[in-house]
């Protein structure tokens, strides 16, 4: 059988099996709170008709765009500088390594204190969650770059900013993009958590609100499904960056 077909048929078969198993399990348990797949679909339809689905998706994406965008703008240059200048690395790396393992969830009270219950609070949390993976991967990218590129560049008389622009940055780029991809996944994870507390729109808010306002578990699961699907789409979009000729060399044989 040809491989393309295999790559469509197998995941579809898994999905069908999963949905059938889910449906059967709900029916057999006799639960009237946990929804069947069909009820979730109906819930999604209801949200779409009310215009809430699109509104919440846009709200969540808006927060991620800001928080993640700021993290890229801050994290990439910061990581490259830390990777290149040893004193900067010595001064800041311990600090970064202490901040990094603190879950963004732990920052929620602080975010509310500093920014109140406004959009700024979740944007700040998303920024915090994604800036560290981006910084650390950009830093490692420079530190691990093949020395032969650096030496070849120095041999041609490059130093300072031209060396950075023509060699260090392009040499680091594949790993920087990998860091960006990981960070986007984290950012999307965190938007949901952030919206559960601080705001009144978005997919995270939908989940908590549906639970609190009348145990609408069909809408809870509908929110979860949308989060999963959008996360998948975001990842596929960033993966496209890895296909450019300027960086493809950095990902081995794929």
């Amino acid at each position, binding site marked *: 059988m040809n491989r393309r077909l295999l790559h469509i048929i197998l995941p579809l078969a898994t999905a069908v099996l999963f949905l059938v198993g889910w449906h059967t399990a709900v029916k057999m348990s006799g639960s009237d709170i946990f929804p069947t797949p069909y009820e979730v679909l109906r819930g999604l339809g209801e949200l779409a008709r009310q215009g809430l689905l699109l509104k919440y998706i846009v709200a969540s994406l808006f927060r991620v765009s800001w928080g993640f965008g700021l993290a890229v703008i801050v994290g990439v240059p910061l990581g490259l500088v830390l990777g290149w200048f040893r004193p900067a690395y010595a001064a800041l790396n311990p600090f970064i390594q202490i901040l990094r393992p603190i879950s963004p969830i732990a920052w929620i009270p602080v975010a509310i204190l500093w920014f109140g219950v406004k959009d700024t609070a979740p944007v700040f949390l998303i920024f915090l969650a994604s800036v560290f993976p981006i910084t650390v991967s950009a830093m490692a990218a420079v530190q691990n770059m*093949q020395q*032969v*590129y650096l*030496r*070849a560049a*120095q*041999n*041609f*008389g490059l130093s300072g900013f031209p060396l950075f622009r*023509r*060699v260090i940055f*392009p*040499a680091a*780029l594949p790993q920087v993009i990998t860091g960006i991809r990981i960070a986007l996944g984290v950012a999307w994870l965190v938007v949901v958590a952030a919206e559960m507390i601080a705001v009144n729109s978005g997919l995270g808010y939908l989940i908590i609100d549906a639970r609190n306002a009348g145990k609408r578990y069909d809408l809870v699961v509908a929110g979860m499904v949308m989060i999963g699907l959008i996360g998948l789409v975001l990842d596929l979009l960033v993966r496209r960056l890895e296909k450019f*000729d*300027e*960086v*493809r*060399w*950095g990902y081995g044989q794929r």
Partner: protein
Amino acid sequence: MDNADMEKTITVRDCWMSFPGKQSGSEIHVLERVSLDVAKGEFVCIVGPSGCGKSTLLNIVGGFLKETRGEVLVEGAPVDGPDPGRIFVFQENGVFPWLTVEQNIGFGLLSRPVAEREERVKHYIAMVGLAGFEKSYPRELSGGMRQRVEIARALAADARVLYMDEPFGALDFLTRLKMRADLIRIWQAEKKTILFVTHDIEEAVQLADRVLVMTKRPATIAEEVRITVPRPRDLDSPDYLAARDRIFAIMGMDAHGGGAV
């Protein structure tokens, strides 16, 4: 023709090199009392056992390492870092994978007018036999082709001296033979000074005007063998075989049976 009469491009006088060892305070002596000369336009090979320090020596001459003591003069001045007029060709291939073949070859020419740059890139792409691959990326090329790109990049930048550190070491046997023949053709056309490090005795005898044989670590130059076989070299000629066997003997090997003589 005596070496002393010719203009010297590279002069190494009583060069020593040691690195700090694993235990604090200990030192690993890599080079001891190394002296050599390379005349302008000369092709000199350095051979020696693996790990003897011949790459270290080339890195010192190339300006990437600083000798512990001694004197290293290139083109009349003490070496103080790498220089665009003297390009290093790396064994592990220093071609930039994010640039196309023509962008790589034009890498050292960015300060020149566009027309001149394009002219030179085109010329050297043809010289190393890569016409038709201008827009290819290194990952799409074979190992031999990537090494050609690196050589063309050095030539296009108008390097007067090439330092080559086992540049064909990772290539298969036939590609290696072809690369040697092409390197000699290019060297004869371009009149560059070449200092070439290899552990392959046959390679050294096929390429060089002179072969410098290094000892085990701490390394020094044991002997110099002048190769007088006319080019293109007949690899079955008595002169070729004699030169090869002589170097084998200096390195304590027997070309026919291996092991100690």
